[in-house]
Each structure stands twice: as C-alpha cells, then as structure tokens.
C-alpha cells in the first residue's frame, strides 16, 4: 500500500502483526455482567458468561444467537465499549481488557465497529466527510489535506462518490449510510472489525450489496471480521467459522460448512431447523422449542439450554417414563419458573399474607391439567406433590429446588464442558457428547443441510 499509513507505535500490541491464519485474538473465559439498577441487592445480568474462542487473522468469525444471548455485548466488550467483568482477551502478550493509555489507543485504532442501525450510527448534523474523517483527526493521521484525500478514497472504495463528502446522512438511503459507516470503520486501517448485525436493518436486495462489499474489502485489505448476526443464512454465506451463543455461552463453535451440515449441539440443531427455507417444496422436520430463553439474571444451574432442550438427558431410573409424562414434568417446572419470576403486587402480597386466594393459588389447576389423566409412578408423584404443596404457599423457589433434586439429571446440575465433535476442531457443549449418553443427533430429528 502506497498511502501514508499510520505507524504502529512501539508501545506494544505486537500481537497484531501476526501472519494470516495465526491467532490474532484469543478470548478466554470472558465474562461481562451488567449491574442491575437496583440499589439494594439485585442480580447482575450475565450477558456474557464465560466465553472462550480464538479469532484467526484474516478470517470471518460469525457469532449467531437469538436476541439477549449476549452476542452484541461480546462484540462490544472486545472493542472496549463495555468493561469485562472477568476473563481475558489476548492479543499477543497483551490483555485487551486491561489495556490503558497509549496501548488502549493503539487497540482502538486497530479494532473498529460497524453498527447495526444505519439511522443511528451516523451523527446527522455532520457531513459524511466529517464523519469519516473524525477517526483520522482523533489519531492525528497525516496532514489535514492528506486526511481529506484519504476520506475521498475511502468513499470511493465503499462505493460512494467523492462529491458525497459534503452531503449529510439525511440525504442517503439505509444502504448508503451503512457504506459510510464501513468507510468510517476502515479509515484507520484497522486489523480487526466487529460487524454488529451490519445488514439486519436493510432490505434483502440492499443487504446483498453490503455483504458483497464487506467480502471484497476483506480480500483487499486482509481484514479480520467478527460478524455478529441473528440471520443464519447471512452467517452461512459470509463466515469461515461460526460460534452459536445461547444465554451468554458459546454452545457450539466450528467451521461454517461442517456446523451447518451436521450441527452437533441440540441448540444449534433447533436453531437451524427453525429457519424457514425460501423453498416451498422443502420438507422440514422441525424441532419447535418450548417456551422462551430464561432470564440472564438467573440462568439455570446446569446447562444453559436445559430448560428448553428437546433431548435433555433423563436422570437414572426414569428412562422408561413415557415421553408425554416427562414433557408434562418439564412444563410444570417451566410454569413454576415463570411464576417465581412474576411480580406480586402489594394487594396480592397482602392477600397471600392473610391466606386469601390469589392468582398464584391456581397451581392445583395447573397440576390437575398436566397430570390428571396420567399414571404417575410413585417416584414422580411424590416430588410433584411436594412441589405443589410448596408452590401453593407461594414458595416457588424451594419447589423448583426440590424438583431439581429429585427429578433433575446431569443437565440440571452441571454445566457441560466443551467436547470436540469432529476432526475439524469443532467444539460443542452438551452432556450428550459424553460417552455414556447417546449423541444429540441420534435422539432428535435430522437437521442440517446434508439431507
């Protein structure tokens, strides 16, 4: 490159200069918690809860997951928009979460973000030229004339025209604004770019333009992308490797092709099977998940996915209980969980205190409905009755504890470790990868591109 590039300062971050294919960024047990606004006590929101992965130079690592899974927080933590609660992010010998002063500035120059919302990511009282130039000004890049020249070349590079320099964001469409956002992110020639849902606010036809542009730029500039998205088809198209997140954890991580063809983790499988195919003739064997993800304030004790997992391991001695009964137990637990989170109004608390009936006293109806026409073996009937008694008094938490103790399996008690699942360094967190259990794929419907 002939342009006057910013000299990398001698102050470190030597790790950025690694060769393509080597590990650029190494994330280990990263945690980011948000304190709740409550002055007195209160659980923090565990947005990212112990995440480990590597990012290799020149690759595109996709992070997918549903809203609230912590993928955006993860991206923001990597570029130091959020402070990490624990763990580390290594670049060579430096820990990004601990950087300060000049080192931090060096990281800020080399790690950039493209934001999701093109409406909100550009200051609409500044001209496009000023917006793209601002990072250059902050880092004292070249002379003012050189900066202006660089901005013009950047605009051209992202598919805009030079004369757009003095236009305001209002005069652009969503796709063009996103191009401006990309130009701004590239101004300082960063090594690493976090793309936070860069196309999800755009229409399909425009989305394709931006995806093509991103891929061209990566090729030309040797960029490393962290691509955050909820749209699996986009991730499949653009990413080299994919990490699937659920409730602050990476459930599965591996090369895109293998992961999409033969997903190993039950959550990945459910997620993939939920995506509607743009092909009306496709026959899908869909796994529809029950309920919604639990609150990240109060994640399950064992596997994060255990509350919704369709292939959850049964505890010993209950393998022969029929599926519907077992499902009813899971629904019962889900109901109690929802109740324990529901808020009681003052009048309800008073009624409860005085022993009157409240909407929470309907637990018997729930039990009735779930278990009425079922033969329950004593080993199930007993804990259910006990839990019902506890819940009737408004104590859902002990009821839940009791059910977990009596009817919970390894999924309810221990967080699963990462297991290698095929030859390609793919990892998946699920107890079923243990030798003693059947693989998830063996017990659920078939999912994946390989049909």
């Amino acid at each position, binding site marked *: 490159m002939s342009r006057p590039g910013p000299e990398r300062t001698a102050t470190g971050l030597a790790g950025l200069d690694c060769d393509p294919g080597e590990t650029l960024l190494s994330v280990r047990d990263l945690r980011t918690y948000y304190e*709740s*606004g*409550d*002055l*007195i006590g*209160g659980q923090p929101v565990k947005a990212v809860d112990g995440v480990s992965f590597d990012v290799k130079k020149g690759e595109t690592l996709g992070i997918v997951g549903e809203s*609230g899974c912590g993928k955006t927080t993860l991206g923001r933590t990597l570029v130091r928009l959020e402070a990490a609660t624990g763990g580390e992010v290594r670049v060579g010998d430096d820990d990004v979460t601990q950087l300060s002063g000049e080192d931090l500035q060096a990281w800020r120059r080399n790690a950039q973000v493209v934001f999701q919302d093109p409406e909100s990511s550009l200051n609409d009282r500044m001209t496009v030229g000023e917006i793209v130039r601002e990072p250059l000004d902050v880092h004292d890049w070249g002379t003012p004339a050189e900066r202006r020249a660089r901005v013009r070349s950047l605009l051209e590079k992202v598919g805009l025209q030079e004369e757009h320099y003095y236009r305001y964001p209002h005069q652009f469409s969503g796709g063009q604004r996103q191009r401006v956002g990309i130009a701004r992110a590239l101004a300082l020639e960063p090594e690493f770019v976090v793309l936070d849902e860069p196309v999800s606010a755009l229409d399909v036809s425009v989305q394709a333009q931006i995806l093509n542009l991103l891929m061209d730029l990566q090729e030309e500039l040797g960029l490393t992308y962290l691509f955050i998205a909820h749209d699996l088809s986009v991730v499949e198209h653009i990413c080299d490797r994919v990490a699937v997140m659920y409730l602050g954890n990476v459930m599965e991580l591996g090369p895109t092709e293998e992961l999409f063809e033969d997903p190993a983790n039950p959550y990945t499988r459910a997620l993939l099977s939920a995506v509607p195919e743009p092909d009306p003739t496709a026959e899908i064997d869909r796994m529809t998940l029950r309920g*919604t993800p639990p*609150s990240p*304030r109060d994640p399950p004790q064992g596997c994060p996915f255990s509350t919704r997992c369709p292939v959850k391991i049964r505890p010993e001695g209950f393998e022969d209980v029929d599926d519907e009964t077992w499902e009813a137990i899971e629904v019962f637990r889900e109901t109690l*969980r*929802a109740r324990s*989170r*529901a*808020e*009681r*109004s*003052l009048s309800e608390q008073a009624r409860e205190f005085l022993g009157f009936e409240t909407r929470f006293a309907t637990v018997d109806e729930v039990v009735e409905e779930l278990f009425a026409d079922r033969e329950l073996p004593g080993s199930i009937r007993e804990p259910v009755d006990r839990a019902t008694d506890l819940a009737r008094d408004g104590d859902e938490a002990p009821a839940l504890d009791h059910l977990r103790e009596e009817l919970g399996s390894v999924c309810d008690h221990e967080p699963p470790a990462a297991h290698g699942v095929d030859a390609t360094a793919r990892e998946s967190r699920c107890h079923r990868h243990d030798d003693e259990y059947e693989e998830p794929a063996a017990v659920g419907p078939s999912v994946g591109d390989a049909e």
Partner: protein
Amino acid sequence: MSRWSYFARRVLLMIPIVFFGTTITFVILRMGPIDPAAAVIGASGDTEAYTSVRRSLGLDQPLWLQYVDYLRDLFTLQFGYSWVVNRGRPVWELIGVYAPRTIWLGFWSVMLPLFVGLPLGFYAGLNPNTLSDYVASFGGIVWRAMPNFWLAVIFVAVLTQSEQLFGFQWESWLVETNIVTPPELQRLWVPENFFGAFKAILPAALVLGSASMGNEMRIGRTAVLETKNENYVETARAKGVPGRKIVYKHVFRNALIPLVPIITGEAFLLLGGSVLVETVFSINGLGYLFYAATINADLPLVGSLMFFFILLSVGINIVQDLLYTLIDPRVGYGGEGA
C-alpha cells in the same frame, strides 16, 4: 426491580434531598449581613439584651455547632418560636393557624384546573385543528401567561365593582362573603359554611390555578393527540371497539400518565405563588406568613417554615410516585417478560 422496591428507592432518595435542602436554607440565612438578634431587639440597641438574645438563639456558638443544632432541631421537628412577627409563639402553633387557609386555597387551585383545564384539553385533543381547538389552545396559552399578582389585582378590582360592571353584587351574591379577607373555615361540614368558604376562596383559587389550568389544557391536549396515534389504539379499532369506548378506555387512561407529574408539580408551585395571591386577597396563609417573617427578618421562623415547605415538597413527590405506581403498571419494571 419490582414496582414497590422502585417506590421504596424513591422514598429513600428523599432523605438526602431534605438534608441538602435544609442546608441550602441555612446557608442563605447566614450568608448575608443580617443579624437575627439585632432584628429581635429592634432599634433599642441595648447591649445586654442583645447579648442575651444572642445567647438564647445560640448565636454565640461556633457556626458549625449552630448548623448541627439547627439540623437537629428541625429533624426532630422542634421548630422553635417566632421572635419578631408573633413574638414568643411556637412555630407549630403559627402553622396550625395559618396553614389551613393555604391548604384550602391550594386544594381548590389544584382542583379547579383539574376539572376545567383537563377536560378542555382532552376535548381539544380529540378535535384537533378545529376552531374550538384553536380557541381553547390560544386561550390556554394566554391564560397561562398572565402573572398571578396582576390577575389577582384585576379580580379584586372587578369584583369589588361588580355592581357597576355586571349589575350584580358579588359580595352578597348567594352567600355573603368578603373579597379580601381570609375565608371562614369553621364547621365546613355545614353546607352553608362550606359554600361560603368556597365562594370566598374561589377568585383566589382561580388566580392561583390559572397557570396550571393553561398547562393542563395544553398538555392534556398533546397527550391525547399522542395517545390517539399509539398502536394499541389502532389495535382497539382493528378489533372493532366503538370510537367512544376507545376514547374513554384506551385514550384517557393512558393520556393521564404524563399528566401525573404535571399536576403534582403544580401543587408544589402553588406554594411560591401563594405569597402574592395571599397578599393581594389578604388571606393570612403560610405564604403571607413567610413574607411577613422575611421582611421582618424573623430568621428562626423563616428557617422553620422553609423546612416545613421542604417536607411538603417531598411529601408531594411521594404522592406523585404513589400515583404513578398505581396508575401505570409498568413503573419500575426494568426486567424482561417471563
């Protein structure tokens, strides 16, 4: 965070506010050259009396100790005695005498706008850009722009001359009342007394509530306009709810939410305005008492009254939060659905 822990948090926040508010009062009282003791003994200039007054007021102590004493007395609700305005009477007793008139005045100057301004505003919001909307809106703005003291002066003049101007005498109309005297607040449960007291306070309450009336009208109008465009109103229409019911059920209740702080905020604003209105109408209320204490340099009385006002303001704030928690189920709800 539940609604009630939100509410508890708000109440907790009131403590430092009372503390700082009281401190500010102390600073104001002490930053000027006014010597409370000198004001107490007046022009006689007797050194001995002066020293003894100083001592009994605690002025011979170091300033920080005075501050601590001042805080301790107020926070234990020992308001002390008036020294100049009504020498030797306990402040509590004065409040007991003066406060009812102010409360009576304040009550009606909150109620009148509520029952006049709000309906007018809602009406204008339901019929935007019609002639009646313009008249109501413009009227509201001008009505709000009128200074209370001036409006009071005009009211007094017009009412005293009502015979010449309108052909009937206000003072003897329906019930015999005076225009510029405090209302009689004895035995209000007797309808006649009640009505008399109401009529006596009506002009003053109208004046004091004028700004609120204009405000509530304007904000009521915009709140209705805004609520009308909410998605849930469209949903209600989409499920076939008749127009009238949409207005009553889905628009009004939601439009009331932004009005809660307006109404309570105004209730507090009335305290300041009461000085002028009470002066013009010669209603010996708290505002008037405060004014008299100020210009007579009765600083102990001023300090205690100010503390009383701070408590009132904090109380109104708590009422506001309570109203909020009652009217809006979302208050304090930061969490996620289950």
